[in-house]
């Protein structure tokens, strides 16, 4: 039996939850068909999360590509179909091509599994990001390095803790409805062990009555706790928090059945969501908005 999962017309961090809600009652080893025929747009989070979804399923999933040529063409340029063809039974997908290199794709979907991959990602983003961050987002040229540092630390989370490879993508776009400004978005998603299991592997871990995915996220993201005893560990996410604080950005991390967010004044997200449909690994999104002149 194959269960059809409808992919929303606009796939982002928020609407990906609708995908997981449909998936929740379906046993791991049952085949699913992800139907994206009517999907018109996807954020870097949406695309990388789809790939991790495929990784997480025991049975190879089928995937219907968007019917819109424009959407398909754009997803091709992000590199989505290159990796999707390895993970899904693809239907209706265009021949994969990355030619053209869309200007607002700062970093195409890139697999991250080893330290070398992080070097590759950081090298590529520095070449492309400086002019976009300074000219389009009015972010100080000095902040470009901080942006690459943030990206590096976010990717290292996969290398150091996930236990399996994941994906990263970076894109800029105009966030018309919510913000009316351009944003640059980093998405880093994996289907690995997740924050809770990672922290449980620490020799110093002591479970409390409230130990769950939400608490694990609070420990790691807010308090900088790591599974390693080394006191120097846990600085990566602290650095990410510092960067988003400086540039009025937003950080959200989903792991297991919880999601935590550092919410700036321009957004109305909640700081902690629990009892979400369970999903393996960790999915992180970092959003840096265009800087506007102080009032």
């Amino acid at each position, binding site marked *: 039996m194959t269960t059809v999962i409808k992919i929303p017309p606009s796939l982002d961090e928020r609407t990906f939850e609708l995908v997981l809600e449909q998936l929740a009652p379906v046993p791991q080893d049952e085949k699913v068909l992800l139907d994206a025929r009517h999907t018109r747009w996807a954020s870097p989070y949406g695309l990388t999360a789809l790939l991790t979804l495929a990784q997480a399923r025991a049975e190879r999933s089928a995937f219907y590509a968007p019917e819109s040529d424009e959407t398909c063409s754009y997803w091709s340029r992000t590199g989505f179909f290159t990796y999707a063809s390895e993970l899904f039974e693809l239907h209706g997908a265009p021949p994969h091509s990355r030619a053209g290199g869309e200007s607002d794709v700062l970093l195409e979907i890139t697999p991250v599994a080893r*330290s*070398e991959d*992080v*070097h590759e990602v*950081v*090298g590529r983003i*520095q070449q492309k990001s400086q002019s976009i961050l300074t000219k389009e987002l009015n972010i100080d040229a*000095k902040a470009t*390095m*901080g942006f*690459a*540092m943030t990206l*590096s*630390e976010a990717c*290292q989370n996969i*290398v*150091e803790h996930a236990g399996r490879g994941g994906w990263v993508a970076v894109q800029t776009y105009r966030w018309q409805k919510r913000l009316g400004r351009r944003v640059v978005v980093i998405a880093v998603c994996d289907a690995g062990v997740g924050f809770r299991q990672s922290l449980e592997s620490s020799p110093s871990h002591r479970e409390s009555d409230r130990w769950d995915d939400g608490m694990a996220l609070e420990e790691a993201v807010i308090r900088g706790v790591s599974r390693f005893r080394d*006191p*120097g560990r846990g*600085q*990566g996410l*602290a*650095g990410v928090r*510092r960067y988003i604080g400086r540039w009025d950005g937003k950080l959200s991390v989903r792991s297991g059945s919880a999601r935590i967010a550092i919410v700036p004044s321009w957004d109305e997200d909640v700081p902690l969501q629990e009892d979400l449909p369970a999903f393996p690994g960790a999915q992180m999104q970092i959003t840096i908005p265009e800087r506007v002149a102080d009032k």
Partner: protein
Amino acid sequence: MINHIDLSSVLRRTVCDLYSDLVTRPTGKAVRDGIEKQLAEIGDRTLTVIDFSHVGLLDYSCADEIVAKLLMRYCVPFAPEAPPRDAYFLFRGVSDSHVDAIEAVLERHGLAIVAQTEDGAVMIIGSVDENERRAWEVMCRIGRAVPVDLAREMGVDCAQIEAALDALCRRRLAMRFDEAYVAVGAAS
């Protein structure tokens, strides 16, 4: 003895000759091992200039592995065992973005370094108390000094200055020569 280590050369030699960014923990550890290897080949008391001039990006993980962990081996309050040698460090060619990463990791461990920025200015980065910072700044200005001179210059009592100098030496921010002290980075 003054020793010079170009970090970008260590990076290319120990990790990959195509890299110019210091990112990830494994990279930082490999570079620190490379530095330690060079230190092992030189004299007992050394001032080593660690040069960041040709390093692009430095992330927090790498800063922790290279700067903090290297320093912890030689700083008496932090080293788990006796330091292998009497080593002092000056971090040269440090850019604003390097400072961001280095400062964050040093503050986490309660460490401090002497850094020379790209424009040649010398400064302490990290955690030091006010007396230590002032003593270091005065030594940078007047050069080699004995505690009584420093106490007079700073308008504090001698015992206070001796405690600050002792802390600066243990933290590798000043060197003692008999009864006199010299700030790391003075007239660098």
